[in-house]
């Protein structure tokens, strides 16, 4: 329990150990610790950013898909409309063509009827003349009775 030179020796040793620690132990280890802390913080921040980016990308993909679906829907609707238009046009054209054919046929029928009527008229006039001649037992002068005959023809 004696106080002696050991006291001073211990103080000197203590000072040397502290100096060693200040110079060669503390800074490298603390630097490593602090740098690791920064790196971990950076890594976590990067991971969070990556996740955010991923979420954004997923959102964008969803948007693009939706747009594609909308456009496809639009195409379908448009093509249906166009098909209906084409069918309508075709129908219209068919009806017009039919009408035109009908009109032409009617014209031709009328014409043929008139022609038939004309020929019948002439034949009837001849038959009437022949009948009258037989009735009168004499020849009827067609020229003399032209007026009567024409009147007759008109009446038929």
């Amino acid at each position: 329990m004696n106080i002696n030179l050991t006291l001073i020796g211990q103080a000197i040793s203590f000072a040397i150990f502290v100096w060693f620690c200040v110079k060669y132990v503390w800074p490298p280890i603390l630097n490593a610790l602090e740098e690791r802390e920064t790196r971990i913080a950076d890594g976590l921040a990067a991971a969070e950013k990556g996740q955010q980016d991923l979420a954004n990308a997923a959102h964008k993909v969803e948007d693009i898909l939706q747009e594609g679906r909308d456009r496809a829907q639009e195409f379908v609707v448009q093509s249906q409309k166009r098909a209906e238009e084409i069918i309508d046009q075709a129908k219209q054209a068919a009806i017009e063509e039919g009408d035109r054919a009908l009109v032409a046929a009617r014209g031709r029928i009328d014409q043929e009827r008139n022609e038939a009527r004309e020929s019948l008229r002439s034949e009837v006039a001849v038959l009437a003349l022949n009948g009258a001649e037989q009735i009168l037992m004499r020849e009827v002068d067609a020229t003399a009775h032209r007026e009567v005959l024409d009147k007759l023809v008109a009446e038929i």
Partner: protein
Amino acid sequence: MAASSPAEYISHHIQNLTFGERADGTWGFAQSAKEATDMGFMAVNVDTMFWSIATGLLFCWLFRKAAVSASVQTPGRWQSCVEMVLEMVNTSVKDAFVGNNALIGPLSLTIFAWVFLMNLMDLVPVDFIPQISHALGLPFMKMVSTTDVNATFGMSLSIFGLMIYYGIKIKGVGGFLGELAFHPFGKAFLPVNLALETVSLVAKPLSLSLRLFGNMFAGELVFVLIAALVPFYIQWLVAVPWAIFHILVITLQAYIFMMLTIVYLSQSHETHDSH
């Protein structure tokens, strides 16, 4: 060890190996407690110096090893272990120290690790090393440096010096003396203040070193008592629980020494009205 009585055995175990000038004028190791006392101040406790420097070098080597290969990416086991200790010390400093001083961290780490290693020698069975050194012709051998007041005072007085140095450096001579003279009761009670503050200032290194010394000396003494008084075949029944409990004590004492150092030095950095 050829000790004839328990009392002799015990006193033998608490005596330092002291080197100095003997009564007959020759230099050598003191052969008895009285001879060691008679050597006075001009003597050295060789065992204290040896074990403290050995443990100090061990601390330097172990921690330097981790520092040299300190890796940011892949810390090894030893590096992680050292980092845990360093983090603990650094957190304590950050929590308890008000100023900004690059010395405090490494100082605290040195105190903690060195005191811990010196205390750790307490767990070596009390007769192992003394028997070996006795065979080598050394009369005494105390392994636990912190059971020598010289070791604890060596540290606490160094810290006391730092307290005064930083007190004067931060607050100026006037500020430092002003804190001593005018502090608790104002200028009217200057002598009372001076007496109170001086006592509290001087008590700091005293309590710091005596707390560590007292705890470690008592712990060591219990081990010696067990070895001296309990029959050898049931010694383990008492010594093992005490040793397990002592693991707590040595760590705690190292931690307390470190924390008080931080607090005392923090007070030296505090400006006047903060406490």
